[in-house]
């Protein structure tokens, strides 16, 4: 199947039909709400929406909208059942229109040319909007062919061939790790580069603020998610919209961690709602006699440096520490940071890696290139049997919820296995571990406040890196994780030097600094953030005799 024949290329033809189906299903599903049926359920539903929206808009928002919700709240008890039903349907239609995107083949064709160039220029520190303007003038020039070639800077790894074949046999749900707002752009490039079909995905409203980004996202099938809206009606619209798209066979992408990982850890607590809609869609399809499968593709996005590292870890520590954490305002300017990041990342020796893990079915079994689910012993499975009871397919909401939890665990495990550890992350984990061993009694927050300036002798750091690397190589050989090639093979001294250099190239206050005879801790919070990438393996790394020596 050529890329252009995937269902998304016909999205606009079915757009109105999808809209009607989503509205009809949401209205039908919400006929019961809060344990009651219509018209009381409609009253409760609208009251729930009005309560949350008035609360939100009172803290700052459109005055017109605030007054509209206040009027509705006052009218609710006097509305007839017919008026309540009409109001629910009208609100559903409003939010479906707000959420729903388009897909324009011309914009896709443009994006396939612009995105590599745009990313290339972005990584060379050029303004994105300027990139688009310059496109027509610069297209075709030999120098820009080089610029478009990001393969030296972004490695694509893993089960790409399998994923490509499965895209012909069923519906893909790509579920990546999430570290940065750059993820969706980089992943969009990765799908094009891997000759995989475009996917529909939900993007936060803030990402639509930039008109250029909004233009591309709106016309490439992205749907808008407004995380400020907390009421049930809106959540039901979002859930139903993504489910209808899945049932209709549109390839999908969502970040199961919900938001960017604040701590730097590989996400382990996943949001199960959208994963669950993959199982529900499978079940719905089967009931209609449609046995096209849905495949879950765990994917890891691995950066040597993360654009928003400082602000993310600040958020995380503030949330975790509450009053124990004394936040420091580093006065960092976001735009300045973006420019600084863009200029530096492309000149790093270490490239970023996007790794596609083995696809899974909605029950967490591995799927082979032939589209068959396989048990742990390699036996081909009949997937529909998971929905059977006493020889017949049955609906069991609690059973299916547990299947989804199991799928979530399989995705989490795949995230751990497929994470590619970078030199910065390895050295950060080791150095913070050394700090912990120096002061075993200190709680994390005190440690992060006091470790800056600590000196670690070069020889001991090198020995410890050597030991840690050997341990990581063993774990990689056992299939527990992946290592960046530089981590695996570089001489220890070069590995340490490279990691320190990488930190210094981007972060204003480097995580570590090199001295004549050792390594000095710069920003312990960055050590914590980058080192957290290894925390999922910490049991295996900390087990056994203590090998991390205290600096003397």
């Amino acid at each position, binding site marked *: 199947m050529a890329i252009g024949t995937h269902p998304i290329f016909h999205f606009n033809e079915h757009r109105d039909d999808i809209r009607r189906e989503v509205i009809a299903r949401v209205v039908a599903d919400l006929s019961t709400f809060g344990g009651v049926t219509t018209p009381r359920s409609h009253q409760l539903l609208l009251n729930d929406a009005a309560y949350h929206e008035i609360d939100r808009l009172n803290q700052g928002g459109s005055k017109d909208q605030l007054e509209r919700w206040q009027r509705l709240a006052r009218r609710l008890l006097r509305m007839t059942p017919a008026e309540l039903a009409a109001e629910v349907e009208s609100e559903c239609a409003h939010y479906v229109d707000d959420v729903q995107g388009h897909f324009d083949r011309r914009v896709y064709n443009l994006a396939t040319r612009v995105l590599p160039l745009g990313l290339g220029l972005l990584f060379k520190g050029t303004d994105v909007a300027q990139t688009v303007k310059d496109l027509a003038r610069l297209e075709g020039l030999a120098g820009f062919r080089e610029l478009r070639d990001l393969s030296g800077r972004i490695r694509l790894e893993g089960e790409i061939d399998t994923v490509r074949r499965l895209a012909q046999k069923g519906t893909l749900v790509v579920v990546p790790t999430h570290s940065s707002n750059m993820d969706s752009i980089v992943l969009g490039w990765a799908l094009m580069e891997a000759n995989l079909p475009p996917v529909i995905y939900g993007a936060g409203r803030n990402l639509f603020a930039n008109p250029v980004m909004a233009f591309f996202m709106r016309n490439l099938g992205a749907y808008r998610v407004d995380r400020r809206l907390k009421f049930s009606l809106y959540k039901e619209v979002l859930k139903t919209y993504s489910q209808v798209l899945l049932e209709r066979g549109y390839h999908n992408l969502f970040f199961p961690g919900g938001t960017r990982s604040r701590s730097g850890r590989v996400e382990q607590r996943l949001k199960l709602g959208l994963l669950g809609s993959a199982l529900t869609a499978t079940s719905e399809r089967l009931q209609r006699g449609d046995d096209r499968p849905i495949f879950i593709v765990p994917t890891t996005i691995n950066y040597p440096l993360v654009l928003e590292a400082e602000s993310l870890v600040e958020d995380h520590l503030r949330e975790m520490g509450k009053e124990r954490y004394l936040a420091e305002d580093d006065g960092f300017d976001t735009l300045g940071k973006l420019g600084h990041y863009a200029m530096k990342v492309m000149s790093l020796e270490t490239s970023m890696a996007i790794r596609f893990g083995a696809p899974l079915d909605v*029950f*967490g*079994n591995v799927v082979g290139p032939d589209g068959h689910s396989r*048990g*742990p*012993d390699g*036996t081909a*499975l*009949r*997937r*529909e*049997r*998971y*929905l*059977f*009871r*006493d*020889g017949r397919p049955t609906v*069991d909401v*609690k*059973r299916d919820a*547990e*299947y989804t*939890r*199991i799928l979530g665990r399989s995705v989490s495990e795949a995230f751990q296995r497929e994470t590619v550890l970078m030199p910065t992350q390895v050295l950060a984990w080791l150095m913070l571990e050394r700090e912990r061993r120096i002061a075993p009694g200190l709680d994390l927050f005190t440690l992060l406040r006091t470790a800056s300036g600590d000196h670690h002798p070069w020889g001991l750091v090198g020995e410890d890196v050597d030991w840690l690397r050997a341990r990581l190589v063993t774990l990689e050989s056992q299939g527990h994780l992946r290592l960046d090639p530089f981590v695996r093979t570089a001489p220890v001294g070069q590995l340490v030097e490279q990691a320190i250099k990488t930190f210094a190239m981007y972060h204003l206050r480097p995580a570590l600094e090199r001295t004549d005879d050792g390594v000095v801790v710069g920003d312990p919070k960055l050590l914590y953030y980058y080192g957290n990438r290894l925390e999922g393996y910490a*049991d295996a790394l*900390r*087990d056994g005799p203590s090998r991390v020596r205290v600096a003397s």
Partner: protein
Amino acid sequence: MSGPSFVVWGDGPWGRALSRRLASGGANVALIGLRTSNRKLPRGIVHSTDLAPALGSCERVLVALPVTALEAALTDAARHFEGHHRVVLTSRGLTSRGLSSAEVPQRASEVLMQRTCVRQFAVLAGASDATTLDQGRAASLVVASAFPSWSKELQAALAGPTLRVYTSGDPIGVELSNAIAVVLAVALGVAHAKDATSATRATALTRAVAEMDRLVRRFGGTAGTAFGLAGLGVLSTLVFDASGPPFDAGSALCRGDLLEAQAQTELRAAAAALSARARIAGVSAPLVDTVHELFEGRQSADEALTMLMSRAARSE
């Protein structure tokens, strides 16, 4: 679907007792053993040595194999399982891979999930054994599953006038409690063999239960599960009987007869595994650690008692 309503895999005393319990509740049972058997069985139970056809015609499977045999058996039979099979595990303890193995012994359900495609599983445990069931004396069991419809189905199939069956949504906690209880029972066996006073034994029992709860919670179970039938229930059975492998091992350790104690290889491996897991997880497990040290000959019973009693004072 025609055929038996339950496959009971394992025809030892526990498998046979549970088969009889199921048959008396109206189920048709295919009892699967390693060898053909001429022993008379009640109506409703058919003995066989062939698992595959039984699994081909039945969705409900009760596994009554010793935990030591579980991994090999499930690996061998994995190809016969399908997504619709609902399995209940009754094995007690952790899988034993030998003390020299670098791999951590596992819970039975972990083995089931890793070796087969089965998703719907439950765990059966509690204050009962084959003799109690066969004699029709009052007893209780708990069936725990994350799949409520499966645990309710099992509750209905097993319960009877002399057997109460409770459900739980915490299979990990039930499985862990069941495994930890037998290790802690070794410590209680030591206390018993030292001819200690009731006060000493009571102290050991209450601290054992507190430790079990701590470990269960740390390893993914729910707070309070250890105080139920699979934890305190199993521990109490061993204490009231004052016999059985854990107590015998405790007696041997108390006498300093290390070889006899170490013959209980499963208990020794379970103590080592739990102690290692607790240390890595940073959870206090003084009784499990002590049992491990005793099994490895690094402490005598007297030294262990002195060490336990001289620990820093703390709140309960």
